């Protein structure tokens, strides 16, 4: 596709339920990023992949959060035993290449997660 796509766009979960959020990056983009955006705040970094390698997961808020990108393209962010504080918009971004260059991240539309 032309841009980054994410699914589902909206997800309502009961507290304690597991959820899986999908990201399809721009074809050929090496780097993939996940962000969490709370209401009224800017996106906050969760984790990042270079191809299939998860190079940084320092932003994941707890061990209930897990991300993977097994074939270096599509990525899934999984949240286990969801809590109300997990309610946020989860944004995925991709960029052509890594590191240090003047590389722009392109964002998907986000998945809005509401945990009741």
């Amino acid at each position: 596709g032309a841009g980054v796509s994410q699914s589902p766009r909206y997800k309502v979960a009961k507290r304690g339920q597991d959820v899986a959020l999908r990201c399809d990056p721009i074809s050929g983009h090496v780097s993939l990023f996940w962000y969490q955006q709370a209401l009224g705040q800017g996106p906050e970094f969760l984790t990042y992949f270079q191809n299939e390698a998860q190079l940084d997961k320092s932003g994941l808020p707890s061990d209930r959060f897990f991300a993977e990108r097994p074939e270096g393209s599509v990525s899934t962010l999984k949240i286990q035993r969801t809590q109300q504080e997990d309610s946020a918009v989860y944004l995925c971004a991709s960029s052509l290449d890594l590191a240090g260059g003047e590389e722009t991240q392109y964002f998907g539309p986000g998945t809005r997660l509401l945990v009741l």
Partner: protein
Amino acid sequence: DQQVKQNSPSLSVQEGRISILNCDYTNSMFDYFLWYKKYPAEGPTFLISISSIKDKNEDGRFTVFLNKSAKHLSLHIVPSQPGDSAVYFCAARDNNNDMRFGAGTRLTVKP
């Protein structure tokens, strides 16, 4: 720890006038700065960027200024148009690709 700050949550300007959005950062390791624009229910869209080796970058109606000594950057939009109404996020990145965002400024351009 807010490493990137946008102190104005909102800004309202008249169509045709200049919009100036400001951003301050604290981490001297940031070497690349970006502005994103966000409409409701959409992801942030890249607008313009600047490398730390420059102090100005211009693209049409949009100009970004960087003052490294003050750790300050600004986005100028001139002339402002109603379609520019959106939330604008400032972002800063270090050479580990760690990108931090400000909280955003909601710009309203009145016809």
